């Protein structure tokens, strides 16, 4: 597999959220607004890239019997650093995401990539893989949060995470009389996710059927 393919794998083909069903907890919980989704996505990308790089650096000296505890300690340290930074510089984001920032430690995507990729590949490839998977995750939660926020409040907005009063943009898409507030509730999260996963599966099935038809000819 060449570098470019490896980098783009996380976008659609091996999308960690809709394809592999990893990191579902945060995906369902924090996608109520676009702000939360972008903040969470950036935090996950940072942790994922750094953990992949560090784990790839020490892959030759880590005894394979205790590799999982070693990975978890590295990830926990990185997450704690990110959590402290968010708390200091973006307190609004910290209170919005709440416990889901420390819970990045147990986000399956990060440990999954450490085990499946970074423990076997060179440092540069691992960083690239972390970035690709992180972007795949971020795009998925951004799509979900846009759908949920627009349907639930009718407004799509993005505020500067470091200064809450500064609204970067705000558009009213659906008139206030037609909003479906259910989409900010848990059921909205489950339904939105199921629909997106179903659409992606339908696309994949259609592609596979086409490929099969071609082979038949």
């Amino acid at each position: 597999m060449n570098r470019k393919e490896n980098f783009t794998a996380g976008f659609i083909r091996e999308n960690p959220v809709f394809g592999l069903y990893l990191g579902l907890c945060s995906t369902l919980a924090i996608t109520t607004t676009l702000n939360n989704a972008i903040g969470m996505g950036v935090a996950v990308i940072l942790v994922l890239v750094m953990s992949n790089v560090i784990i790839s650096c020490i892959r030759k000296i880590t005894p394979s019997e205790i590799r999982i505890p070693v990975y978890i300690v590295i990830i926990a340290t990185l997450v704690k650093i990110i959590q402290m930074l968010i708390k200091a510089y973006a307190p609004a984001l910290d209170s919005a995401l709440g416990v889901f920032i420390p819970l990045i430690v147990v986000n399956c995507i990060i440990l999954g990539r450490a085990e499946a990729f970074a423990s076997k590949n060179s440092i540069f490839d691992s960083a690239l893989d972390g970035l690709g998977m992180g972007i795949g995750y971020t795009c998925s939660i951004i799509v979900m949060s846009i759908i949920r926020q627009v349907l639930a409040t009718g407004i799509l907005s993005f505020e500067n995470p470091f200064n809450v009063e500064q609204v970067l943009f705000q558009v009213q898409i659906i008139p206030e009389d037609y909003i479906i507030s259910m989409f900010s509730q848990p059921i909205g999260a489950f339904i939105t996710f199921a629909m997106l996963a179903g659409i992606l599966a339908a696309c994949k099935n259609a592609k596979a059927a086409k490929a099969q038809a071609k082979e038949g000819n």
Partner: protein
Amino acid sequence: MDLSNLFVMFITFTLINNVVLNQFLGICPFMGVSKKSSSALGMGAAVTFVIVAASLVTYGLYYWVLEPADLEYMDLITFILVIASLVQLVEMIIKKTSPGLYKALGVYLPLITTNCVVLNVTLNNITEGYNFAEMLTYSIAIPVGFTLVLYIFSTIRERLELSNVPQAFKGNPIALIVAGMMALAFSGLAGLV
């Protein structure tokens, strides 16, 4: 602390603020081991044991070791190590006592380490400032709620296997829609307390 408050707290965290349907934690095992009701119960029991034990150990560690030593920022790292070791212990116990269950739980047993419910409970015990009785109630209520929902969900999924579902929604997507319906039903319990 009187008992009625603890009881209200128990009901709140099992039914109203249910850990899976309301707080979206532990979705991975919720989707993963819910295909058979017997393994769902086994998973629930294992998670309950790990959560109660982990809460007791981390609560003690935080207030007797980390806080006196001004090492509060080490909480995440300490807690995850405690959880990982406890899961290893449970895995050994189940392997010895019930090989059938061990096989049914499969890869999801070591994955209790990365079950967000466990870490969430241990962290919340500290951040919410619970006293000992509240901490114990909370650490029992959460896994009980988890087991309850997991069991109900698994019985629905057993029926779902036999039903005719659109091709694209087979497997996880339709299960998620069912989970959404359950979340809606459970939100009706909000008036209970």
